[in-house]
């Protein structure tokens, strides 16, 4: 080692490591700043909703009973979608939503853990029995979007998918009860 050049000395190695650590630090700070900036200015946040629901009595519950599933528009104009993820289908199979309008998606499971994503959007969540999975989003593209189950839930998992039909504002006409489905 006595013949090693000065560059090989520990001081030089330390200097290189510190420089590298500085570069990594700059990147981490930039990434965190970007996340913080988009969270504060654009509302980009991970969905966080802890809400219990009895998975054994979903069909008896007021909210996730069969007659209450699908898209409904409240008197204040807010749009809420309620759906059940069950082995091996989503109920309803097709969900109608308006474009360029804030939509609240609420999902529950009566059996096992499911997951879902809506293609071309950032909607992506797990649906865990006993909890309500809730996401707020705004659909900007009209047309049919695929919503598959993305958590293996059994032998029929690959057949478990639904359609999200994003309608233009003039096409989105709920009935007198405030409900709208893909058939309308």
């Amino acid at each position: 080692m006595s013949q090693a050049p000065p560059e090989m000395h520990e001081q030089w190695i330390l200097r290189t490591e510190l420089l590298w650590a500085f570069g990594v630090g700059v990147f981490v700070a930039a990434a965190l700043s970007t996340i913080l900036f988009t969270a504060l200015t654009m509302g980009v946040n991970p969905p966080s909703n802890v809400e219990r629901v009895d998975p054994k009595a979903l069909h008896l519950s007021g909210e996730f009973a069969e007659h209450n599933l699908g898209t409904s528009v409240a008197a204040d104009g807010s749009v809420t979608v309620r759906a059940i993820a069950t082995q091996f289908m989503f109920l309803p199979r097709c969900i109608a939503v308006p474009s360029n309008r804030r939509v609240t998606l609420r999902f529950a499971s009566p059996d096992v853990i499911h997951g879902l994503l809506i293609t071309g959007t950032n909607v992506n969540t797990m649906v865990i029995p006993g909890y309500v999975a809730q996401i707020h989003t705004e659909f900007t593209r009209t047309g049919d979007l695929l919503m598959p189950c993305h958590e293996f839930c059994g032998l029929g998992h690959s057949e478990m998918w639904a359609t999200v039909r994003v309608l233009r504002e003039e096409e989105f006409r709920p009935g007198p009860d405030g409900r709208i489905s893909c058939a309308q």
Partner: protein
Amino acid sequence: MQSERVENSELDEVDQVDEAALARVMRSVPLGTAVLAGSAVALLVLGYLLIYLLIFIPRGSVG
């Protein structure tokens, strides 16, 4: 001990690298490592930024 000495001497015979040449090469090795690691990380960061700015952000917010 005897066998160890024999093994070492065999290795010395195989290793024909000149000390000065080794030092010359080793002078540029840290730079090469930094360039290689830097390029790999820079590509990774670039990919992350492109996906974040061109795909994730235009898709709109969820929360």
